[in-house]
């Protein structure tokens, strides 16, 4: 019995922590491969298909290369901040994953195993806050490089992320209105009780959240901080080897995080479509984690699809979009949802 308690009290949490570190990494690997293949397919090419089955091991080959690259620190750089910023970026996006519920809790021999590390009554705030700490990593990295392009890229990135965080938070609040909780698990459970995903109730919120989410992660068409035709590579121009890989992985992990948030807030997390409806009860046979994975893959694919389709915004157009369109729209949406909540 004590062995069993030991297993459930010590080993399971350790395994869960390992899984939560590994899970974004695996998603990043899949994502890097998928991005290169899908963009290639859209452009009529084949993309990497040599390393492993259909090139699935390509990101691992890339990472191996980056491991063996020389680690260069520019002489003029601020060494402490230069080394600190990839850690900050990486840690902030990995840490946020501990609050993401991956599936329904299940029971083994009287013990409930929850598929998340931490459940907090302010989980949503924590996740948004942690992803904002990454901004410090970006601005430190850009400034510490002591080079003009990284600094410009970092400034652009910070302006963009700070601006887009406003509609992001505002639309997340409309979901909180419905669920009456900032706990991510409670939000998912509430969608089960409500019999419908919030995305269908709040299409405007979802749209604004998704657009802001793309801008938050500095992805095309909002990838101005990394506009290689203007800024070489943005805030990580001076980085090489594993430090560069940290920025790269953190960016993709952030994409996975935003997709997870969209799925949890608007598309019912691990729930099958139309939970509680009798006719579709057979969908519950599929484990929750699989549903979650399917949904998240769809949004990750959408990221790439949008990248392969839309051209990059001009910087003034980007700022105009958020302050003149998304923020008023998010405010209006917020007021309407609040009114609807109190009147109905």
């Amino acid at each position, binding site marked *: 019995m004590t062995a069993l308690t030991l297993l459930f009290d010590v080993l399971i949490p350790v395994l869960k922590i390992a899984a939560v570190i590994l899970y974004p990494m695996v998603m990043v690997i899949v994502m890097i491969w998928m991005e290169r293949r899908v963009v290639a*397919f*859209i*452009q*009529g*090419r084949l993309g990497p298909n040599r390393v492993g089955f259909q090139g699935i091991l390509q990101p691992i080959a890339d990472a191996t290369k980056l491991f063996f690259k020389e680690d260069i620190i520019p002489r003029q750089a601020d060494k402490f901040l230069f080394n600190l910023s990839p850690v900050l970026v990486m840690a902030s996006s990995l840490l946020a994953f501990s609050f993401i519920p991956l599936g329904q809790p299940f029971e083994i021999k009287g013990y409930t195993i929850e598929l998340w590390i931490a459940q907090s009554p302010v989980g949503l705030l924590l996740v948004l806050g942690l992803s904002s700490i990454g901004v410090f990593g970006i601005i430190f990295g850009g400034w510490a490089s002591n080079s003009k392009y990284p600094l410009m890229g970092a400034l652009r990135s910070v302006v963009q992320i700070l601006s887009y965080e406003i509609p992001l938070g505002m639309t997340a609040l409309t979901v909180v209105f419905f669920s009456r909780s900032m706990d991510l698990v409670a939000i998912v459970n509430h969608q089960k009780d409500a019999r419908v995903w919030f995305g269908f109730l709040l299409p405007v919120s979802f749209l604004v959240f998704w657009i802001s989410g793309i801008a938050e992660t500095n992805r095309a068409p909002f990838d101005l901080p990394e506009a290689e035709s203007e800024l070489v590579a943005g805030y990580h121009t001076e980085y090489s080897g594993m430090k560069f890989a940290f920025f790269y992985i953190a960016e993709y992990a952030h994409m996975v995080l935003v997709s997870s948030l969209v799925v949890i807030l608007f598309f019912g997390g691990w729930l099958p479509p139309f939970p509680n409806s009798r006719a579709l009860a057979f969908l519950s046979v599929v484990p929750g984690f699989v549903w979650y994975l399917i949904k998240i893959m769809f949004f990750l694919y959408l990221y790439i*699809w949008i990248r*392969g*389709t*839309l051209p990059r915004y001009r910087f003034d157009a980007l700022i105009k979009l958020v302050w003149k369109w998304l923020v008023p729209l998010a405010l209006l949406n917020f007021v309407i949802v609040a009114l609807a909540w109190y009147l109905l």
Partner: protein
Amino acid sequence: MKSVQEIFQKVFLLDILQGLLVTLKHYFSRKVTVQYPEEVKEPTARFRGLLRLYRDGKGEPLCIACKACQRICPTNCFDIEGARPEGSKILRPTRYDWKLDRCSFCGLCVEVCPTDAIRFSREFRMSLVAKEHLLFHLPDMYVEGEDLQEFICGGCRP
């Protein structure tokens, strides 16, 4: 009326959806990539590959060692010596050196050849491992097709 349509388009992001559909169509389109070492794209009929000496239908060499190619060559690629074999009325090359590293593939030698002995082959895979391999001697000048590729590849030449 037009403005209503414009507003409709803007509100429902129709342009963006249309764009996404276009890329989706391309996603399933036929890919144009040629997977090089496994698939080789056939060069066009008039492709200027390696210069080769050719034989006639009976297997007799066409070259009569007239040195017209040597004279016209702007980059002096050729070193040719000819001799009359015993009992024959026709001059044959005893030495026919062609330097690939000097050749500019201008095609003047092909144009000037009176017997159409020297022609462009369609062989374009010319990667070689040593500088000496860029010099082609007489018997090898008759090699063509797949044999030529095998002959060139991987420094297998003596």
